[in-house]
């Protein structure tokens, strides 16, 4: 009997706390979105959501699906851990900035001539959106672009975009443009109704050209055993770093800063190095890459053997789901492996 009562109370408590309580949209926005989009939606690493030209031209459905699915291969992650109610609460916060009701778009398919659309796309859209709708490069305003350009051309071939935007929403964007961004009204630019339908049909056709990528399983770290003692391994690591076009920055004991100077364990050492050109490129792609900086190899001597360990940039890059960053990090991984292999010989 007592157990039954406890069970019922617990059940009610859990249900009421997880299901019935209205999600706090402001808090959710602050925790999940503000870091990239700004506290007031004026953008940063992410799109300026509060820009009237943006918010007044997208539906709540578009915002909801964008939060839910993200933009695979771009900076915007998929927030699959949020409940529908939580996503809706965030959408409400964003919508309230405009003070205007959300536009609602028909979900019907627009039928145009895909071939004509392709020609028009080449003529009018590729300068900003790229040859295949891949969008502009780079992300954050901090490193990659000045604030006077509030938005980079979105990747309209992205499966996240295509699943979020209805044909009608794309059509309306082409007709009206987006005020305050480089996206002009194409009706104003002389395109007719049929031309715009052809363009929408061509953009929609990108859906068919998206092969599903199978992520290969890779380890988060690279580890090699040295055949030498700590002193000789250090010499070998330094030589390999310099030979790979990196600048050796510093060698320090792992425990530096944690114990008194001179008392650090000499069998735990970190070697820091850098290629400033690659660092600059990485920060321009995504300013958050500091998560796997600085470049370093950690040497640990245990039972007379020295183990050299580093992070695997390719594995870390996956956290950002950014194709551009993945390419750079794949190059970094090859360089790390070269250094570690050479030093282990």
């Amino acid at each position, binding site marked *: 009997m007592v157990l039954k009562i406890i069970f019922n109370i617990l059940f009610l408590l859990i249900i009421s706390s997880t299901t019935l309580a209205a999600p706090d949209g402001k808090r959710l926005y602050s925790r999940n979105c503000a870091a990239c989009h700004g506290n007031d939606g004026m953008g940063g690493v992410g799109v300026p959501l509060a820009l009237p030209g943006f918010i007044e031209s997208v539906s709540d459905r578009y915002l909801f699906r964008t939060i839910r699915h993200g933009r695979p291969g771009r900076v915007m992650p998929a927030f699959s851990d949020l409940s529908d109610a939580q996503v809706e609460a965030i959408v409400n916060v964003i919508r309230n900035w405009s003070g205007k009701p959300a536009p609602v778009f028909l979900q019907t398919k627009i039928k145009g001539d895909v071939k004509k659309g392709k020609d028009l796309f080449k003529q009018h859209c590729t300068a900003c959106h790229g040859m295949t709708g891949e969008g502009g490069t780079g992300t*954050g305003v901090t490193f990659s672009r000045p604030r006077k350009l509030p938005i980079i051309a979105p990747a309209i071939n992205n499966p996240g975009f295509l699943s979020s935007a209805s044909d009608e929403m794309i059509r309306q964007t082409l007709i009206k443009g987006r005020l305050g961004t480089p996206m002009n009204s194409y009706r104003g630019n002389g395109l007719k109704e049929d031309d715009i339908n052809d363009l929408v049909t061509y953009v929609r056709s990108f859906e068919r050209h998206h092969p599903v990528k199978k992520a290969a399983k890779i380890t988060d770290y690279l580890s090699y055993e040295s055949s030498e003692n700590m002193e000789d391994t250090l010499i070998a690591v330094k030589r390999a770093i310099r030979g790979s076009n990196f600048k050796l920055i510093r060698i320090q004991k792992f425990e530096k800063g944690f114990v008194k100077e001179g008392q650090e364990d000499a069998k735990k050492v970190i070697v820091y190095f850098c290629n400033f050109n690659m660092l600059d490129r990485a920060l321009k792609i995504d300013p958050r890459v500091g998560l796997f900086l600085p470049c370093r190899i950690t040497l640990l001597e245990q039972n007379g053997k020295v183990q050299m360990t580093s992070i695997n940039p390719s594995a870390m890059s996956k956290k950002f789901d950014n194709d551009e960053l993945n390419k750079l990090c794949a190059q970094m991984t090859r360089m790390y492996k070269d250094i570690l292999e050479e030093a282990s010989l």
Partner: protein
Amino acid sequence: MRHIRLKLIVFLLTLPGFLNIALAQDVMMVRSSLRFPEAMAALQNSVIAHKYTLSRIQRVDIGLTRAGYKTDRYRIVFFGKQPELEKITDRHPQMAAFLPLKLVIFAEGDETIIVALNPLHYRQVVDDHDMNILYQRWANDIRSIMDDVSHAE
């Protein structure tokens, strides 16, 4: 019947924690409306208040500027607890590549952004009971530090 109910209660009680672990985002981020120097000071104070030792601050922006690249202020704050670090690197040498813990802090105009890798991610490096408890504590502490900075005035 009684056993089934007991199991159900235990399951329901552990569900929120399980969901937190299973569905956590890999990258933790927060924006502070403070300018960089004030946000940096708040960050350091909070790290220390959470009983961690702040071992070093890597001035990425200084290195980049000296090398001729243009950048805003960008630092990496390293921190940890010595006994933990010693124990972990002795038992799980592969974890050394990810330690000490770090927080990335950079200016974005008049505001500041702080980023960290969610320590729960390290389950992919070492997945055992003791470490999982530690990862959860680190994640809670980092979230709390981030909250401190975002609420600091």
